[in-house]
């Protein structure tokens, strides 16, 4: 086993390509070290990407925000501009783990761990976030929802690293929100969750919507039918009821130690409604 700390993304990609045996990317380590402790992975090479300066920044650009792969979630919460533009994404990132974990964990790590219950992923998917992938043949930008392919699996090819997450610049009258259900008030993995992102027209009618559900299927669910329910509405009671029904219907959950199928279906609908209401308020709707 070796531990290395490359200074450039090109070097990191090169090391990853050249690695014999298993290589693991270390950013926050809050998933990797737990899996190593449990004996589930024994990497031959650990590539710590935190010394790559560009990966530790949040950049505000003309197009929006670029969040480096090594930026801890706590830092997302400390960025006022990001918090104002994408409160739902930030609140989702801030829900991952404890204060201790917040200082380490990253949204890219959360995405690449490919857990169906990852908190930041439904919020990012609702937000239409994109991932910048660096690889041996250069860079490409892909939708966040195309990264996880199954629990614990991603679409990344050998040698590829996600170096940043891109979030669009906010239009006026836009808002997002994320809610998850956990049995305690902190420290749990989401039993089921919902992220909603809305833009409104000047009259307060929903113009565009994206609704994503977490822990409701093997990978994050972008529920287009739910978005259709919301578009054109002012989130009246009947719309919210239909939204809940559509979301519950879209779920393909499992029974496990964290919840039952029935519970996840029902609560997915409840959370989607509540998140939509918050997103609507944040967008200036009343």
């Amino acid at each position, binding site marked *: *086993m*070796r*531990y290395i*700390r490359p200074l450039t993304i090109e070097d990191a990609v090169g090391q990853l390509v050249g690695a014999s045996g298993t290589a693991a990317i*270390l950013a*926050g*380590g*809050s998933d990797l*070290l*737990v899996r*190593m*402790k*449990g004996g589930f992975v024994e990497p031959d090479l*650990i590539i*710590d990407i*935190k010394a790559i300066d560009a990966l530790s920044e949040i950049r505000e650009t003309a197009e929006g925000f670029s969040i480096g792969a090594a930026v*801890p979630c*706590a830092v997302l919460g400390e960025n006022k501009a990001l918090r104002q533009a994408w409160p739902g994404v930030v609140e989702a990132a801030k829900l991952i*783990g*404890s*204060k*201790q*974990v917040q*200082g*380490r964990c990253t949204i890219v790590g959360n995405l690449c761990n490919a857990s169906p219950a990852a908190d930041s992923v439904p919020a990012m998917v609702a937000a239409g976030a994109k991932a910048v992938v660096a690889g041996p043949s250069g860079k490409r930008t892909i939708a966040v929802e195309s990264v996880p392919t199954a629990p614990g699996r991603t679409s990344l090819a050998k040698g590829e690293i996600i170096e940043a997450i891109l979030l669009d610049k906010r239009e006026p009258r836009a808002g997002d929100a994320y809610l998850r259900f956990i049995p305690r*008030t*902190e*420290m749990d993995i989401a039993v089921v969750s919902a992220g909603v992102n809305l833009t409104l027209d000047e009259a307060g009618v929903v113009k565009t919507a994206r609704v994503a559900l977490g822990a409701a299927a093997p990978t994050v669910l972008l529920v287009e039918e739910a978005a259709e329910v919301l578009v054109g509405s002012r989130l009246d009671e009947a719309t919210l009821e239909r939204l809940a029904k559509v979301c519950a219907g879209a779920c393909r959950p499992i029974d496990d130690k964290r919840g039952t199928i029935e519970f996840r279906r029902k609560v997915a609908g409840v959370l989607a409604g509540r998140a939509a209401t918050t997103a609507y308020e944040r967008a200036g709707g009343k």
Partner: protein
Amino acid sequence: MAGVAVSTTINGDHVEYLCQPDETLLEVLRDRLGLTGAKEGCGTGDCGACSVIVDDRLVCSCLVLGAEAEGRQVETIEGMAHGEKLHPLQQKFLEHAALQCGICTPGFLIAAKDLLAKNPDPTEEEIRFGLAGNLCRCTGYDKIVRAVQDAAGVMRG
């Protein structure tokens, strides 16, 4: 397995050690450096008993590799008091009996120190959520929260 040479600062002192690539900072502190104040309650970041501060960030030392401490500033419970003089949090934990068995206490003190550094006048709710990463099984947290509130008052002066 090749050892990693690390040069770091712990509680203000320059420290050098050699550790294995998969060795956690907690293992380094406890087994190589004799700093056993940080405890392993779970090894998976769920209990907070191993809390330390690395470059002003509160972390679980079980979720940090020893190799990652290179060039950083690490604060542990052993560095909290100044000689004989206890930190106000330590003093208030004693006065309020905010510990029974005491195994979680170092982690709570470090986490509370970090909390008050960032929020000198927290509400009860902010304290409770701020310390939610630290498990205590003895006290029901009541006296811990009161001790932190009291210490915050003392520290604000």
